[in-house]
């Protein structure tokens, strides 16, 4: 039973990478008891603090106090991500593959992985920032427990990692995109920042996303809405119009733009635009109807819900 994991040696994926090795100088922090999540966030945050204009928002004490669940003797993935966001970073969960992990490392993005150092019947969960890999030696480098840049054999690493479903997350300053991001998943991560009270950071993230996916309807919609909610109506209008230049009958964008026009005193334009909005979704249609009614009413009432 003990030897059951010792199968034939498979060809290692490390060989598919373009770069033979990658090493990221992530500052090392000695782990504090039960706080490997907090120290992992701390290490990644100080890396970005040292290499970009990013400044951490939380102190070390706050990181500890936000992540530890004493009765569990550790930190949930949910709270690791929530705390990273509270520290001003965007948290993006990677696709669960070694390839995605290596790709991020190659782009100098350190990754926090969740490993099970034991077995499923005796789990010993541990977070570690991965700081690089070496194709020649077939090793993965990480700040593992109290050992900085520990080189772990990739076969061992894969075993420990697959027990967490290959869970890994990159924490990035809002202007940076994961190397492996999909537009939809990235938008979700950026919107999570907005929903948890960091709209300004979310706006930076949406704008960076538009540089990679300039015609993505959903990102344009999210950015326009974020500007709208920040009362930056000129910017919001610009992005609603840009969206509509790509998809002229997008009902939600038509609705929101006409609401904006109504609110900024351009009732006639608002009316012309809301007339184009139609949806076979009854909830959306009822919103459209309400906006239309508002415009007909003269755009004068300060509406409340």
């Amino acid at each position, binding site marked *: 039973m*003990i*030897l059951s*994991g*010792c199968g034939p040696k498979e060809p290692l994926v490390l060989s598919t990478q373009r770069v033979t090795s990658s090493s990221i100088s992530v500052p090392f922090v000695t782990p504090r008891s*039960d*706080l*490997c*999540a907090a120290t992992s966030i701390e290490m990644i945050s100080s890396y970005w603090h040292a290499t970009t204009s990013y400044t951490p928002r939380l102190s070390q004490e706050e990181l500890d*106090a*936000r992540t530890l*669940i004493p*009765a*569990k*003797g*550790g*930190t*949930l*993935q949910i*709270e690791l*991500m*929530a*705390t990273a*966001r*509270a520290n001003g970073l965007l948290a993006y969960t990677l696709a669960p593959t070694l390839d995605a992990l290596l790709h991020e490392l190659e782009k100098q993005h350190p990754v926090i992985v*969740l*490993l099970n*150092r*034991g*077995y499923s019947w*005796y*789990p010993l*969960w*541990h977070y570690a920032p991965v700081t690089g890999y070496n194709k020649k030696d077939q090793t993965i480098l990480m700040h*593992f427990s*109290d*050992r900085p840049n520990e080189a*772990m*054999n990739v*076969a*061992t690493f894969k*075993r*420990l990692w697959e027990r967490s479903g290959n869970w890994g997350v990159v924490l990035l300053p809002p202007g940076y995109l994961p190397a492996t991001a999909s537009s939809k998943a990235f*938008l979700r991560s950026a*919107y999570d920042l907005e929903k*948890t*009270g960091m709209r300004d950071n979310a706006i930076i993230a949406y704008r960076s996303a538009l540089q990679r996916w300039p015609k993505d309807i959903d990102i344009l919609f*999210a950015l326009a*809405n*974020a500007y*709208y*909610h920040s009362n930056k109506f000129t910017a919001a209008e610009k992005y609603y119009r840009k969206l509509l230049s790509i998809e002229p009958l997008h009902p939600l964008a038509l*609705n929101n733009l006409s*609401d904006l026009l109504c*609110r900024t005193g351009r009732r006639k334009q608002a009316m012309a635009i809301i007339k184009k909005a139609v949806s076979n979704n009854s*909830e*959306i249609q009822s*919103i459209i109807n309400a906006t239309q009614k508002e415009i007909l009413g003269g755009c004068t009432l300060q*509406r*409340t*819900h």
Partner: protein
Amino acid sequence: MNISKLILSFILSITLFTQTSWAQIASTEALFKQTEILSSKDRIIQFAARQDVAKILEQMDVEPKMIKDRVAAMTDEEASRFVNEIDTLPAGGDVLGTLVGAAVFIFVVLLITDILGLTKVFDFTRSVR
């Protein structure tokens, strides 16, 4: 009990705050929802989920003064997942504390598997692989 009340009023203020935009604006949330728009029923369910998160954190010995911030830092989806899966979600932490109670047999097994490169329980082991 006091904490739960505190959280309740806090969350309520957040909910109201985020709701002050004009009622007709379609939210970005619509992009992620099957149902497109968040109904008031959804809001009540999510509100309850956050109260449950606060209670669970309280029961699990989390510092009371941190609970408000920790609940607020979660998205609605995270709060629901937290409540539904708290018993099964892994909590990454320290290895040594957990090991103190382990039987000698398990200690020896894990030591051997460490050396074989199947596990990495102990910091001092070097895999033969």
